[in-house]
């Protein structure tokens, strides 16, 4: 069995999840507590990947990334990066595609904390930033863990978007889900089965670990 697609899948999922975590923390905070107009628009845009067919997102990203259009052209000229049919392009597409899976659970976690925790920190002289990092984040660890794993798992399971903008280049864009599709197309069911089983098992184990950790965290809190 060729391990390269699996390795590529997990590299993509890890990089995507880490990048998203960095973006999603401030974004989730802003959505949870910010005072601004047009929140509905921002939320709708972030939520689009939940409901749109991946092929729609993939199609528009393909156009955007293509050097024949201004964005792709711009990126290629400034950074010398070609985003279509390349790994960096896959990462950007995955980040956009998995955005709601990271942002929504973290926002919900932040909002579920009693307002008095933030208020207490402010009256104790602590800035918003310090309150965020020292009080709010440590108290929504389960939400952050859930968000991270959902994002990771969602990226592992990505197929349509990858196929649209990444194609099927071994070692560059051929992730496990695409490899399974190829093997099935070639009627090579046993190879497809191997990839599928590995994904199946790993995904199950990850989710199992997350839910056990979260249940333990909750149990500690409720035992008061």
């Amino acid at each position, binding site marked *: 069995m060729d391990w390269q697609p699996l390795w590529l899948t997990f590299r993509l999922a890890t990089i995507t999840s880490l990048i998203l975590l960095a973006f999603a923390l401030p974004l989730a905070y802003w959505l949870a507590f910010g005072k601004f107009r047009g929140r509905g628009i921002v939320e709708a845009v972030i939520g689009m990947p939940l409901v749109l067919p991946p092929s729609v997102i993939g199609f528009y990203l393909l156009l955007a990334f293509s050097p024949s259009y201004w964005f792709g052209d711009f990126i290629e000229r400034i950074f010398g990066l070609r985003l279509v049919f390349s790994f960096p392009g896959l990462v950007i597409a995955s980040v956009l595609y998995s955005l709601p899976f990271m942002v929504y659970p973290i926002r919900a976690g932040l909002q579920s904390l*009693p307002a*008095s*925790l933030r*208020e*207490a*920190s*402010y*009256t*104790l*002289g*602590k*800035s918003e930033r310090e309150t965020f990092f*020292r*009080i709010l984040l*440590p*108290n929504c660890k389960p939400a952050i863990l859930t968000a991270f794993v959902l994002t990771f798992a969602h990226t592992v399971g990505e197929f349509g978007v990858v196929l649209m903008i990444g194609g099927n280049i071994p070692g560059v864009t051929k992730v496990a889900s695409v490899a399974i599709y190829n093997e099935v197309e070639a009627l090579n069911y046993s190879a497809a089965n191997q990839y599928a089983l590995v994904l199946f098992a790993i995904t199950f184990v990850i989710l199992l670990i997350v839910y056990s950790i979260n249940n333990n965290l909750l149990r*500690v*809190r409720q*035992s*008061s």
Partner: protein
Amino acid sequence: MSDNLLDINIRHSLHTANGTLPMEIAFTLKEGNILAVTGPSGAGKTTLLKQIAGLIGPESGKIMFGGQIWLDTNAKKSFPPQLRNTGFVFQDYALFPHFTVEENLSFALHNQDDKGIVSELLEATELTQLSHRKPFQLSGGQQQRVALARALVRKPHLLLLDEPFAALDYSMRFNLQALLLKFQQQFRFSIIIVTHDIGEIFRLADQVIVLDNGKIEKEGTPAEVFVKENTAPQDLIIHGEVLTCTQQDNQLHVNALIENKIKTLILPLHMEAEMIPGNNFTLHYPIDSGQIRLINS
């Protein structure tokens, strides 16, 4: 200016279950005094405390504190809560769940060199033994003591307490009230306390204001407010059963069962006819004449 420490005049819209109410409040607090704020739920008591702490911005008005302008909406000036140096004890205590007792207190320090005040407060609140526990491992009274100690770490000039003892049983409440008074004498801060407990108001407060529907309905000393006519908000009613009734010094001393606890009431003589052992009674504040006092026993 006067010796008023705090001078407040604010307007706000209160969003309640019955729609939006205009809130209009003006009062002053003298240095070192204890002000009790009482009144029915939804009257704006917590909102008022949070406005003083700077956690909620009133729509318009002015708050002066010791010559400093904390808020002046005309001049578009508002001091952030971080700089107001108030101590705030929240109704739900708001202890940081991931910190130990000691960490909850030392989080409030400006400068980690001032550890002395933390151990001093832990000592005074008898929490030294529990300093490595997390909040969920503490009883309600212990959590309350942590909240109080934490609010004092920065040596605030003004302590704001939102129904701090409401969830505690009577004797615990009594101990904590005594502790609060001890701290007040030691650190010389002023206090605004939101409470429904008449006994607490009489024991602690120099001044009291009764809020209803966002307005000050009555203000003065506890005796002035609760002993005169027709000022009682609905919460201020005592039901009980008379156990014994004796006359002393031209007053009635009534031992009564109130909320499953035996308490002594001191009542005017003319109420003797109602205070027959075995009778159930309902007392309204204010009672028709004379003073009423509750004594823990």
